[in-house]
């Protein structure tokens, strides 16, 4: 009986795998377009020049990023090459300091520190402006990143990762960009306490 023949199951394994790999390949091509900067889900890096918000969409039932009017970062509008250079720098900071071995981006990484996906939109930064003596949110974030021990948020302190001014600004720009990525509603209920939908 063919069910007793290993060759039957070998053929089944090969055909199953090939079909699944073909489907994966097709979906990968489509997804890569969507997640490229400027694609359907991921904004171009120049989004850092705009106001970012995260608003509940009743039709979709999830929070979605909303890209608003002009809001230059550090008071300066960046063109595409400058924005890209800042992002490249930021990602090198994030990797060289192993940020994702304490924090998460899009929920991926380590869980000792908070998720950073929407950190740009965290309501806490308003308070940190006065604490750090900064005039803007981004300056408060830079001040925090450069001396997190001085501006500790709670008993589990972030250590000083010895970021330069340039590095800290690049990271802040990166956080503004990630806040504008459409993550299908992650993290949920952002900023809404005891939300009931």
């Amino acid at each position, binding site marked *: 009986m063919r069910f*007793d*023949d290993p060759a039957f*199951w*070998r053929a*089944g*394994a090969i055909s199953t*795998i090939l079909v*699944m790999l073909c489907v*994966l390949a097709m*979906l990968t091509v489509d*997804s*890569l377009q*969507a*997640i*490229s*900067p400027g694609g359907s*889900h*991921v904004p171009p890096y120049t989004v850092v020049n705009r106001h970012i918000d995260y608003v509940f969409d009743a039709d979709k039932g999830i929070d979605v990023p909303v890209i608003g009017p002009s809001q230059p970062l550090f008071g300066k509008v960046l063109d595409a090459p400058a924005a890209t250079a800042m*992002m*490249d*720098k930021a*990602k*090198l900071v*994030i*990797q*060289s*300091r*192993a*940020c994702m*071995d*304490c924090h998460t*981006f*899009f*929920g*991926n*990484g*380590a*869980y*000792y520190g*908070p*998720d950073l996906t*929407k950190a740009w939109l965290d*309501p*806490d930064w308003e308070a940190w402006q006065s604490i750090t003596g900064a005039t803007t949110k981004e300056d408060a974030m830079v001040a925090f990143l450069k001396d997190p021990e001085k501006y500790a948020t*709670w008993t589990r*302190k972030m*250590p000083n990762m*010895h970021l330069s001014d340039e590095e800290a600004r*690049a990271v802040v720009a990166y956080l503004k960009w990630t806040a504008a990525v*459409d993550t*299908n509603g*992650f*993290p*949920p*209920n*952002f*900023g*809404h*306490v*005891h939300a009931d939908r």
Partner: protein
Amino acid sequence: MYRSQKLAVKYLAAAIALFGVMTVAGLLSAYYYINPDFLFGMLHFNIAKILHIDTLVIWLLMGFMGAIYWFLPDELGREPVGIWLAEILFYVFCAAVAVVAVVFIVVQYGGSDQASLWFINQGRKYVEAPRWAALGVVAVMVVFGYNVIGTVIASRRMTGIVAVLMVDLIPLVALYLDAFPAVTNMSQDLFWWWWLVHLWVEATWEVLIGCIMALTLMQLLGTSRKIVESWLYIEVALVLGTGILGLGHHYFWIGTPNYWLGIGGFFSALEPLPLLGMVVHAVYDAGTHHMKATNRPALYWMMTEAFGNFLGGGVWGFMITLPQINLYAHGTQWTVSHGHFAFWGAYACGVISVAYLVVQKTRNSALVNGAAWKWSFAALNLGLIGMVGALLVAGMTQSFVERATGGSTLRAFIAGQEDPWFVSGMMLRFVFGLLFTFGYAILVYDLLTLGKRSVSVVAQPVSP
């Protein structure tokens, strides 16, 4: 004993030693949650975690390689081709691991430049090792592949198990190439990173451990080749049939299109079904032999592999895999609970089973039994289950407090972390981690002394 088998013993010994490093780094990582000021300014959580998860990957890889180097010569009837190269690379591999670990501990971080990525820390989870070391891993795996494929060619023999292994090695090595890039776009970075991580631990590694368990079953229980090969093909079909598109369960929230919610959730939800079949198979095999074999610890650890894989991967995974739930559980200690249970059940138990088998053969012990393995077995498994249970409580608390009700902000995160249930969970996790460490110590004692102790090893034939 073939040279390949002597090398296998070295790889398994190195694997068990690294298992110890992983355990100590795990205890340290867990302790930071209890005392966040511990070693502050000297050694932080992220370095301890890097040591913990990177040694996890390396010790399991070394265990797999040890197993294959052990079985390969008997499988193909000759000394593997190029074994001298593998022997040299073993020492290079161990030295590289040591250097990388020392640099992680002493240097820790570099500047935001390519030099840091090449020599210090790449900062991408599981593959933080600097590029020079990643190149070394590629070299080791390429030589490993050469040993396998070259021997097949030279011996002019091929078995079904070796054929599956050979085909599996190609994507295994190719996927590791994602250990090198530093892509700026986080969505894109994670997209490819998940190809490496998921298609390793939920695809190619599953096939690899399947091959190893097939080879182990033949030696341990005398199961016929035709049976294990038939089952290997079925397992490969079912695990890869669900696991390849199950990759989508990592694509819910990273900026990818929302069709992944449906596709990833659907195939991921099917993933436990083959594991059910594995449970039936394991119970059947155990039953036909009345849980007796000449090597009881090897048999018990193999049974634990089947059940652990089902529980850790199947049950724990199924709890959090549907996207509506995953939205709240993603990136919490619930994930950690699942990860610990799944890695343990799917891979660690299998490597320990092989270690016991190899020890029996190398010490010429006709029967392997005794008290020590039972204490180790109990302490390791109870310790692991305790950690997993404690993390489940902490994770559910976090999902509820931080995500469901708290609004997912920094304040919500802190509220979750300070919740009494969370704090208790992390405390208990550490306590059970100590029990696990105790079990590890006995495991090492047992593996080192089996066959050399005056009592408990008796040369008697055991009827099946």
